[in-house]
């Protein structure tokens, strides 16, 4: 299966929510210890703890960057719990591809970044 679909490549080349939010001071960075890739992220929440906005910067492969981009679109209006509940299968179906175990690690880094960022705020 070609995991480099048009959609994934498009999100990789033009990631949504790319760039840190100027009005949020807290950002956190997560690493993939296997490859040294990083995502730095800021998440804004509303008074009901729903995600209002996301901004990120990353050094990562197409899979990790595209996942972070798609995930950012998807989680607006969601809670931390909603993000925690996402399974690797959910993420693969969001991407529309099936990944090998080593590439799943690339794909779930973004979810970890969001969760860690929300926990950090709490």
């Amino acid at each position, binding site marked *: 299966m070609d995991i480099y679909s048009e959609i994934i490549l498009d999100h990789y*080349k033009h990631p949504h929510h790319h760039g840190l939010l100027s009005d949020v001071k807290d950002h956190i960075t997560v690493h993939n210890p*296997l490859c*040294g890739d990083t995502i730095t992220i800021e998440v804004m929440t509303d008074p009901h703890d729903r995600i209002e906005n996301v901004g990120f910067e990353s050094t990562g*492969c197409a899979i990790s960057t595209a996942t972070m981009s798609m995930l950012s679109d998807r989680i607006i209006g969601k809670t931390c719990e909603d993000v925690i509940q996402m399974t690797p299968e959910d993420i693969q179906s969001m991407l529309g591809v099936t990944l090998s175990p080593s*590439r799943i690690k690339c794909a779930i880094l973004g979810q970890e970044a969001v969760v860690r960022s929300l926990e950090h705020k709490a």
Partner: protein
Amino acid sequence: MKKNLRSQFPLLQADNELVYLDNAATTQTPSVVLDEIYKYYTKYRANIHRGIYDISEHASGAYEQVREIVARFIGADDISQIIFTRGTTESINLVAHGWAETHVQKGDEILVSELEHHSNFVPWYEVCKKTGAQMKIISLSDDFTLDMDAYARMLSKKVKLVCVTAISNVTGTTNDISTITRMAHEYGAKVLVDGAQGVAHRSCDVEKDDMDFFAFSGHKMYGPTGVGVLYGKPELLASMDPFLYGGGMVDLVSLEEVTYRDVPTRFEGGTPPIAQVIGLGAAVQFIETIGIQEICNHERMLSDYAHEKLSKIDGLTLFHPVINGSSILSFSMKGIHPHDIAAICNTQNIAIRAGHHCAQPLMKRLGVSATARISFGIYNTKEDIDALILALHAVQEKFI
């Protein structure tokens, strides 16, 4: 290479299309090595050293004979200088725990090159943390070779140990070990050489290069996984503490006193990797049969060819010295992450590695988070490189 050696590797025979360019991670195993391991398991499997019956004597003899084979291969004077370990990492940790922790003190310095794999970096970081000694980094020049002037300036009576790799597992830089040891010895410093990427590709002579410690792994030299070697000068091994205590390494044990066996057995606590040591012996003989110079020439030809072809690809940056470059080359491609390069190569059945290669300080120096890396073995051919170049063009097409 006089003949194509691919036919001697069952895995490469079974998957005839596989282009295997990840030999720095681990090499494939030739039949002669597999046969020796199989023979041990099916004809004379027994534990060594203590058995008073034929197959145990046979196994002990085969195990000890590999010490001779290895000693000759690396130019060691005596078989007692050859310690079997689980691999390079364990060999280096043995020196760190057994020697450095008791011979290095606050105020001393350990020099480590910027090229090092984490296994020749982290143990020294920990030794310095425990002893209060200071770890200093010998930097890399812009041509990817070690800055020997900086090294000369760093040497002083405070330096107790210098840790360098024979060949970098990222850039393929080949270090001038005999010069490094000569300079260190003028100040009384010892030198540990990480030979993991060296032994299967270049002639490594511990006597000629005057190394104090030399570490390497079987699995990167056509041998089995789970075995490695530490060589040490006799006076250093004599002053080194064991780090695995248990059976096999003791002489007499009572409540009052424990005495240890002589070097090297005192460093081989527990049942050693017997089958793997036997396989390692076969791997050394396999390399010697082909001839290390022949291997070196073949890989040099491949590396020059790859260097030339890769340089022609637009937007590709090579991290590989032109002089003294070995059969390992790292590169990056503009706008494309190394993981994606490797994943697309994989769809064409080409195995290359992408990542930080357990050398994060070096990645930082190179200004990247990861590289794509190819590394050759004796079975690789120019056609393998041609296939890679085609795949890299396909990678570019996808991402442009």
